[in-house]
């Protein structure tokens, strides 16, 4: 079996990657995914609880064997300090989306009702549009987007998945 070409048995995996916050480290990571032909769905990055350490959440489509390579290749990057596969852990997974939807006087009430059902928030209103903020699982964000689509979505931005394991130890090893 050729391992790198084992595209069967792919599934979505969530990795949490801790890395030193040095210049070029983000492009180094994304570059590695591209050149090794790994299939990433989303990648988010920001500060972690430790000063000087950034935390990245990567969603990658991979088989077990490819995932093993992804993790090893991440570790090969000098500034990467910790890689954790949290796919099978009990984790809190969230995404934030901003949705600007076409809204005129006749549709505003209906949109507001839908937004309330999703426990989302209207954060801006203009004469022909409303901007909605939603935080939740990707499924929940998907559903709201689909429900709002008939009204006319003028602009949409999603952060991609961020994740944290419930309770226990932090991925960086702190209690």
């Amino acid at each position, binding site marked *: *079996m050729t391992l*790198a070409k084992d595209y069967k048995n792919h599934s979505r995996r969530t990795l949490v990657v801790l890395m030193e916050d040095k210049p070029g480290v983000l492009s180094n990571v994304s570059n590695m995914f591209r050149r090794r032909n790994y299939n990433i769905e989303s990648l988010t990055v920001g500060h972690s609880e430790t000063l000087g350490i950034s935390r990245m959440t990567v969603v990658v489509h991979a088989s077990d*064997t490819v995932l*093993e390579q992804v993790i090893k290749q991440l*570790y090969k990057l*000098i500034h990467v300090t910790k890689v954790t596969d949290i796919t099978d852990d009990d984790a809190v997974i969230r995404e934030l989306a901003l949705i600007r939807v076409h809204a005129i006087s006749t549709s505003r009430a209906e949109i507001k009702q839908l937004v309330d059902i999703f426990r989302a928030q209207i954060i801006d209103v203009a004469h022909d549009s409303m901007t909605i903020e939603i935080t939740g699982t990707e499924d929940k964000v998907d559903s709201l987007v689909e429900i709002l689509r008939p009204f006319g979505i003028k602009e949409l931005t999603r952060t991609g998945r961020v994740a944290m394991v419930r309770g226990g130890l932090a991925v960086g090893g702190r209690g």
Partner: protein
Amino acid sequence: MKMNGAQIIWECLVREGVDIVFGITGGKVIPLYHELPGFPIHHITMRHEQAAAHAADGYARATGKVGVCVATSGPGATNLVTGLANAQMDSSPIVAITGQVASGDLGTDAFQEVDITGITMPITKHNYLITSVEDLAQAIREAFHIARTGHPGAVLLDVTVDAQMGQCEFVYPETVNLPGYKPHTRGNIRQVAQAAEMINRAKRPVLMVGRGVIVARGQDELVELAEKAQIPVATTLLGKSAIPESHPLSLGMGGMHGEAYANLAVQQADLIIGIGTRFDDRFTSAAHTFAPQAKIIHIDIDPAEIAKRVRVDLPIVGDALNVLRELVPLVQEAQHAEWIELIERWRADSREHSRYWEDGDILVPQYVVRSICELTKGDALMVSDVGQNQMWEAQYYIHNRFGGLISSGGLGTMGFALPAAIGVQMGRPECAVWVVVGDGGLQMTIQELATIVQERLPIRIALLNNGYLGMVRQWQEFFFEGNYCGTPILGPDFAKVAEAYGMTGITVCDKAQVGEALERANQIDGPVLIDFRIEQEHNVFPMVPAGRPIDEMIRRPKQG
């Protein structure tokens, strides 16, 4: 003590044990070069930056030390790219220092500005952009540490011109603290014990050895293991010279152009012990066809190499020397008499196949390489280029000196041999250095003949001149209907070119002249180029067609 950035760079290099650097100056390294005469470092002025990187690479391979090359910003830096990729692919520790435009001009497309850290990110082990003199010492210390430890590789330091000229208090960093970089050098004891058990149970074991054994200097332990348990040793191209090839257990090189008996042994084996090899496709061919009956033990310093291409039954992450030292005492003595006898029958058969070129007056490359081998008693440092010349060298030069072959394996960089040989000879002045190169590869870096003459290096160049980009021509002959598109090349009179550069040039057209020409070359105290006008459409046999299992090779045409 207050020092400027340029002084700090040289001081740090001296402290890393560097006494030779290969480079070319330019606008954005003038401050760096201005300070060089104050330091005990010999600078070799190359004629092209690619050659500087190859020379540093050759130096690193020949000495086990870190090779250093220097180039200016922009085109100087981009010219290093091939050399960096080459060193990185073959795990050769080099540090490249490039000049960069002033930090205030970064990103403005200034004259000779190029984002070399961006360009080289995927082809270096690590790189640095240094814009402040205060960061220099720490970065250089880290760069050498990263280049030489773990899975060795290429590291680039891009230093802005203001960082070279700025002043600061020089404090040499005694330690390196890289929380994300901790190579495993000791194999897991339980896994080593398990490996010994697998070896003790095996009926048809084969050791598959790569350059990792040479890097780790594990040659004695390798021979000890092979002899104790009577395990034949096949090598990759870059693993050649990890074991003396006249050793009865040496099978030479396996793979696409490996000897039939080596490949048969691998394919029939019930256990493959891969050490310091990445199971490259030139050895294994299509991974699913490789060693179908064998369990595979893989010993490597780099966890990412394990299970990258082939399935592995037992991984051991560690330095080849450390792991071998722990493994040898646990392995029982064995004979494997039947297995070795079978391999010897295959070896005898291969010998029959390899005689087809021995008779006749035609000047064939095998004869040239065999003659060089006899002349130098298998003891020279051979630097081969890429293509047919490389394979003939690998097949017919019996390497008995540890680390005696230096070649571009992973990247397959034509033009590597000549500049690499400069680094090899500089690093090992006491050794005879021979270059085996084709007329295609030689013309890619031929300007370095000038460097060889300037430095008075007694390098002997055996040019296997067939007027073709021969390996591609061979593929065209075998697999593309003999359509020689883009492969015929007209060369100059190479002996005259050599003479024009100030070295001895000899032309050999007949087989009968080979011995005399080699003798003459050997006597001359200085560089020599011998232009061997070999049979033009001679092929490399055996050959495994792409994607086929390695025991389905095209054999040599049998005599008669």
